């Protein structure tokens, strides 16, 4: 049995991710929604109406469907691929194509690709076409079956970000199947973890999933570093950034001396625009003759307030000095923060967000 007594309420206008090991019935569950698989018992209600109440092809045209390898029609141009469902719905050719052009722009495809054939596009571009085709008739529901599994990690990240952006604009009810828990946690509003045999193990928002997995199966499935991954849900806005241990590359001797005891063992040197150059011990800095080549690398800085505590911690761990560099939106140094301070912020965030474990009540 692929799916057994699964009961799930999928919230409107949000992304619900079905995730689980292979053979857990996640794809079967998705395909039951548009009746590509008919359930042997039970019902699927869409806005309270049994999905079997309307003809199957009418139901399917009201839902976008995106599959793993995009499944584009190789004999049709990109624009005609996207126009498929509008044409099925009886729109005129011109209106369908105008709509298709609109969607190419929406999913970030260059208009020059309209007359190309699928084989001329990269895997990532093909998948964008797949998403555009699913959105063409503006369906309220979007079903996505491992849509990004077949592309490389860099392209996948781009597609995920793009999906989140499109979702912000369009607010569809998306059901998304993946076997990748990181993808689930990244894009899901709600995540349903299924176990083999099609049983629901846990249905929760991603942050809750990471903080309190329902059982050993879910915990195991989430992987070893779920604590670290959970930090992606905490903003770095609450960090106390120190601005004192920062000197510009053209600093005077007094400035360097004044900042030497600013509370950090190292000073961050920036260029005249305020962009970080690297770290140095204060006594190795000589006014007017700061040698950029002798500075310690500052690693990848994080964008203060915008990126998460996970990014901040990562910066601190990677930094040779143990201090993370925060920058503003333009890449200018906004402050520095120690591993210790980040650790304090993490503890604080945990206390704010998690109710005490049940055993302690």
């Amino acid at each position, binding site marked *: 049995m692929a799916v057994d007594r699964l009961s799930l309420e999928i919230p409107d206008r949000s992304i619900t991710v079905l995730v689980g090991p292979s053979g857990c019935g996640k794809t079967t569950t998705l395909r039951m929604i548009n009746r590509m698989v008919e359930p042997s018992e039970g019902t699927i209600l869409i806005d309270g109406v049994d999905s079997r109440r309307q003809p199957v092809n009418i139901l399917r045209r009201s839902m976008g469907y995106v599959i793993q390898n995009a499944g584009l029609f190789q004999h049709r141009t990109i624009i005609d691929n996207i126009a498929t469902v509008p044409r099925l719905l009886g729109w005129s050719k011109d209106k369908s194509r105008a709509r298709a052009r609109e969607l190419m722009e929406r999913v970030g495809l260059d208009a020059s690709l309209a007359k190309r*054939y699928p084989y001329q596009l990269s895997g990532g571009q093909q998948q964008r076409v797949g998403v555009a085709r699913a959105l063409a008739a503006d369906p309220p529901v979007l079903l996505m079956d491992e849509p990004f599994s077949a592309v490389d990690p860099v392209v996948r990240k781009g597609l995920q970000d793009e999906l989140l952006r499109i979702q912000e604009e369009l607010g569809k009810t998306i059901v998304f199947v993946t076997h990748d828990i990181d993808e689930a946690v990244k894009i899901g509003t709600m995540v349903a973890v299924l176990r083999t045999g099609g049983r629901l193990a846990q249905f929760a928002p991603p942050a809750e999933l990471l903080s309190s997995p329902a059982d050993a199966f879910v915990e195991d499935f989430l992987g070893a570093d779920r604590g670290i991954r959970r930090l992606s849900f905490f903003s770095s806005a609450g960090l106390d950034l120190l601005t004192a241990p920062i000197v510009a590359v053209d600093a005077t001797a007094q400035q360097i001396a004044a900042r030497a005891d600013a509370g950090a063992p190292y000073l961050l040197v920036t260029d005249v625009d305020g962009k970080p150059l690297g770290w140095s011990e204060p006594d190795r800095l000589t006014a007017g003759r700061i040698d950029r080549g002798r500075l310690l690398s500052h690693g990848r800085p994080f964008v203060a307030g915008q990126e998460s505590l996970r990014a901040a911690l990562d910066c601190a761990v990677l930094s040779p000095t143990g201090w993370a560099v925060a920058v503003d939106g333009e890449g200018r140094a906004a402050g520095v923060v120690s591993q210790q301070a980040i650790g304090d912020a993490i503890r604080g965030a945990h206390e704010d967000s998690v109710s005490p474990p049940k055993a302690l009540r």
Partner: protein
Amino acid sequence: MNVLNFVSDFFSDSAHWQGYDGIPTRLSEHLGYTLEALAFAAAIGLPVGLITGHYGRGGNALSLIATAARALPTFGLLVLMTMLIGFGMLPVMIPLVTLAVPPILITTYEAMRSVDPSPVDAARGMGMAETRILLQVELPAALPLILGGLRSAAIQIVSTATIAAYVSLGGLGRYIIDGLYQRDYEKVVGGASLTAGMALATLAVFWAITKVAVSPGVRRSA
């Protein structure tokens, strides 16, 4: 060389270019038999191949029938049919169609089976009806192979339609059979080279059809 002399003599003889035994008449007769047999064979082989291929069932039965049909000797069938039915078009058409159906049937079935399943799944998920999936998704993708099957059937018919002359009909076979009886080898070689030329022309025609009918997206990605 002897044979080349035969050919040039045959074609330069103006008597061979006119009348009921002239090259234009025999060519158009031959073409007529070929088109008729191909049309019948396609009318049987294409729908059966498309439908069985689409549903993926009956492949074993098909290959059994096709193998059996291939095992039938065309000439034997012609003689048998003529004895059963008498002289006429029908006893010629039956062996020609029997010859042409198997390649059409089998390649069409295989072509449909080899279509990438993911666009078909996508089409179904988007709410396309089965007929539309067959005609607008699977057929365009399978078309190069299907045309290949029709092409080999057509070439087999062109070369085999010469047997029509055995049962008093026309076509290019007339030259070969009459030439053999009359020991007029110029005529035999002339008829044979016309038949070969027509087979090559058939190849060219199918090449052109493929150019026009197959989407560039399929041609390049296949």
